[in-house]
């Protein structure tokens, strides 16, 4: 750099006044903002300390060891009125986890089903899915929770009048019905094959098949040969909850758990071996079916060998309420149903968008390679769709977890409801809110950490 240029540069620097220097400006702006925020925080903290002193509330987490003195309607761990506040909050946290995890599972299943239905080429099926989505998504979740709780589950009959549900069980008529069904299906399929071009004939055939089945069903029942019979299964629908038989695991039933773990490892080994063999020789092995058989069969076999150490406790009406069995309280059921049905509508849209986002050329290329429809979906479309589906899916899971806090409206003791009761009794607003925020914020930060990890792993590797 020549001396002249250097002088010029120095002059240029000097010509800019200090208040026009972007660095000075940004430093001033940031300092001012920080000062304003600090000032607000200072005032808020000061006020809070004064207010707490005036109402004689000692801040700090000492209160969690104090006896709670209130009962909770639904607990997963032992809890009574003599338990501590900390225990009550723990019960709430576990209840949140329970409803969130079961809700996420059900919402994912239902959401994928509805999303795939929405893409069906069958107009009726896709219309049903569209109607479901448009209705469920546009009605507030809280209202849906109330509908399930107040309008559906609470008006159920009391324990004394509650009907016992039956399990459909094939009866003697089934022996005649199945061949008739087979004949119907055969005629239907032959008819469709023989009449590829006649729409009217296909419609008539389909209607005729359904009519045939209905007629045969009623005919057999009319002849006294019932096709199915309902066997009482010890399940009751009452306004105290849905009562179901509770399995009692007696001593020795742990073998099932061991067998299950062994089966998992075995299934994984079989899968590895099958994939390697297909790579080496091109021969396929039905490793999915084998694995499933292992996972289901091995624990059952172990239980059989151990002499079936599983008892069942049936719910029994005694006095005005049920004794024994497992009770799904209406609060849980309403929250679970509303959360999973509501979230499923959003998941369905995510699934539809994800599958549609996979370019049609991919499907065509797979067909051109000779893949069948099922294989195309499984090996080409779904892996690519998942890349698009999973990030918004994770945020829906998070939404469901956060929405489970609406439990407080119907008295299901989740984290917010249990914490709210503690808050009302102790007045420890700041501590309780801190607990809430810690739990929900860490859940959401974990989710976003997972999504970042997933996105970086799944990013398309491009040139």
């Amino acid at each position, binding site marked *: 750099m020549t001396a002249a240029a250097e002088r010029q540069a120095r002059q240029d620097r000097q010509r800019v006044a200090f208040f026009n220097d972007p660095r000075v400006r940004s430093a001033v702006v940031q300092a001012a903002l920080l000062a304003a925020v600090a000032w607000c925080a200072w005032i808020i903290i000061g006020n809070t300390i004064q207010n707490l002193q005036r109402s004689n509330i000692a801040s700090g987490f000492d209160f969690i060891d104090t006896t709670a003195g209130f009962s909770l309607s639904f607990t997963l761990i032992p809890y009574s009125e003599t338990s501590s506040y900390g225990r009550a909050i723990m019960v709430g946290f576990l209840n949140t986890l329970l409803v969130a995890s079961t809700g996420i599972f059900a919402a994912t299943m239902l959401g994928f089903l509805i999303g795939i239905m929405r893409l069906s080429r069958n107009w009726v099926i896709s219309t049903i899915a569209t109607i479901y989505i448009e209705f469920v998504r546009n009605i507030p979740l809280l209202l849906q929770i*109330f509908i399930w709780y107040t309008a559906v589950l609470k008006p159920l009959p009391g324990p004394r009048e509650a009907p016992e549900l039956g399990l459909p069980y094939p009866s003697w008529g089934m022996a005649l019905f199945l061949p008739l069904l087979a004949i119907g299906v055969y005629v239907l399929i032959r008819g469709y094959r023989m009449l590829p071009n006649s729409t009217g004939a296909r419609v008539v055939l389909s209607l005729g098949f359904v009519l045939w089945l209905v007629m045969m069903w009623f005919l057999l029942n009319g002849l006294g040969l019932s096709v199915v019979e309902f066997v009482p299964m010890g399940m009751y629908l009452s306004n105290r909850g849905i009562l179901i038989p509770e399995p009692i695991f007696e001593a020795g039933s742990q073998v099932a758990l061991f067998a299950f773990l062994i089966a998992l490892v075995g299934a994984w080994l079989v899968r590895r071996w099958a994939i390697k063999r297909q790579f080496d020789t091109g021969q396929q092995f039905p490793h999915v079916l084998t694995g499933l058989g292992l996972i289901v069969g091995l624990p059952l076999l172990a239980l059989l060998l151990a002499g079936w150490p599983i008892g069942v406790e049936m719910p029994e009406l005694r006095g005005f309420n049920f004794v024994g069995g497992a009770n799904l309280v209406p609060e849980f059921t309403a929250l679970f149903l509303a959360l999973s049905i509501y979230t499923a509508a959003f998941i369905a849209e995510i699934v539809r968008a994800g599958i549609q986002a996979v370019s049609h050329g991919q499907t065509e290329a797979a067909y051109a390679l000779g893949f069948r429809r099922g294989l195309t979906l499984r090996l080409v479309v779904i892996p690519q769709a998942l890349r698009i589906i999973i990030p918004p899916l994770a945020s829906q899971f998070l939404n469901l977890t956060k929405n489970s806090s609406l439990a407080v409206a119907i008295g299901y003791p989740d984290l917010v409801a249990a914490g*709210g009761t503690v808050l009302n009794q102790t007045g420890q607003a700041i501590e309780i809110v801190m607990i809430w925020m810690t739990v929900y914020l860490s859940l959401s930060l974990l989710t976003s950490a997972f999504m970042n990890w997933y996105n970086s792993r799944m990013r398309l590797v491009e040139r």
Partner: protein
Amino acid sequence: MVDMPRHDRGWVRTSDAPDKPAPGNVAGPMGWISDNLVPTWWHGLLSIAGFLFLAWVAWGVIEWGILKAAWTGEDREACMASVEGACWAYVGAKFHQFMYGFYPFSQRWRVDIVYVIGLAALVPMLIPSLPYKRENALFLLIVYPLIVLILLTGGDFDISLAVFMFVATLVGIAAVALPIASQGIEAAVRNDRLPLMLAAGGLVLWVVSWFVPPMWISIGFTTVPVLRLVVFVLFAAAAALSIAVTASRGGPGSRSAIASWVIVAVAAFATLGLLSVDFGLSTVRTDQWGGLMVTLVVAITGIVVSLPLGILLALGRRSDMPIVRLLSVIFIEIWRGVPLITVLFMSSVMLPLFLPEGVTFDKLLRALIGVALFASAYMAEVIRGGLQAIPKGQYEAASALGLSYWRSMLLIVLPQALKIVIPGIVNTFIGLFKDTTLVSIIGIFDLLGIVNASFADPNWASPQTAPTGYFFAALVFWIFCFAMSRYSIFMEDRLHTGHKR
């Protein structure tokens, strides 16, 4: 081209395959049925099952809602007569409550006027081909909330002297900034040194006044600390001088700066004046509000506040300044990470703790603050998406034209970014509208809250009261949300131009 070799292998055809029959119905209604209802035997069965299911549901709704419903009646007797149908008589009896809550009957015309003005301004706003969008937006975002506030509460607030002085101070500070606004900071420092130095002196004295013990002096009607009085005089002089020099200089920059300042000042004082004027409307406290009216008030407040706040937060999150960025990120992530119900609990139990003794907030106002902050965090993320979608060249071109940060944002980036994210914004509105139902949990009677409360009325206690009430509420919410989602799709189609490849 070479001759095709002769094939003598068994699997190679030597003659043409037989012609397939011409395809049947490929067009028209029969073709549609063939493709969409009975393409295979399996789909044929699915279609029939689906039709039966749809018919079953539709028949159930029609039977419950129309055929077996009780339409008229004075009390629960009407609905006990047919316990298998909806009890519309109950909705009819409670309709006004569902719409207005416990708003005094004689004053309900005020709510109706609010609805009419709102609709009259909103409809032309939503139709893209109509002109005066900017004026309309200003009306909806600034004037209309003021009208709503005065009409619904009755106005006649006692604005304390402190608030008045605060606004006057802000207007004065804006006046001091006039020379800078009209000619840029460098020229202002060069040309109008005197007012700026007066203001700077005032600022220094103001800071000093916090640290020295006050000396009180009596001026006619009140006593003030002497130092504060000096600060006030200095600022007033600086403001007056600034106005004078800017006005005397002339030129388009000065004129527009003066004009904007006058408009802002007049608007600020007019707002204060309008709020404190007694229009003769009787006061209606917010605990008398209820029903759809409160739902709309909460939703619209959330929308009006969250849009500008969301823009600021989104800009902050994309700022070059690390502290600004950090504060924005913390704010956004905290609000987005927690459920709205905890935010509402916080606003109802923690906000009173934060305020000095004696200052209390209206319950509805506390909920409004919670909802608005919560919605701004979500809005910020939507708008950030739009900002990220703007090509970098647009930012660079704005800088190359010499536009300042705020000008390049307001004139170049935001108009494009907001246009892209209109569907996202509408979706946030839909979410916000549904979320307003949560205020019923903290004891505010929005539509859902008032429907729930009406079940306690023994006059209308019947098995069908709750289902009918919820059905009605669901219908109202559905109509609003569905209309918004259709509008968002319409705008998406309309805006599907330009940047899209």
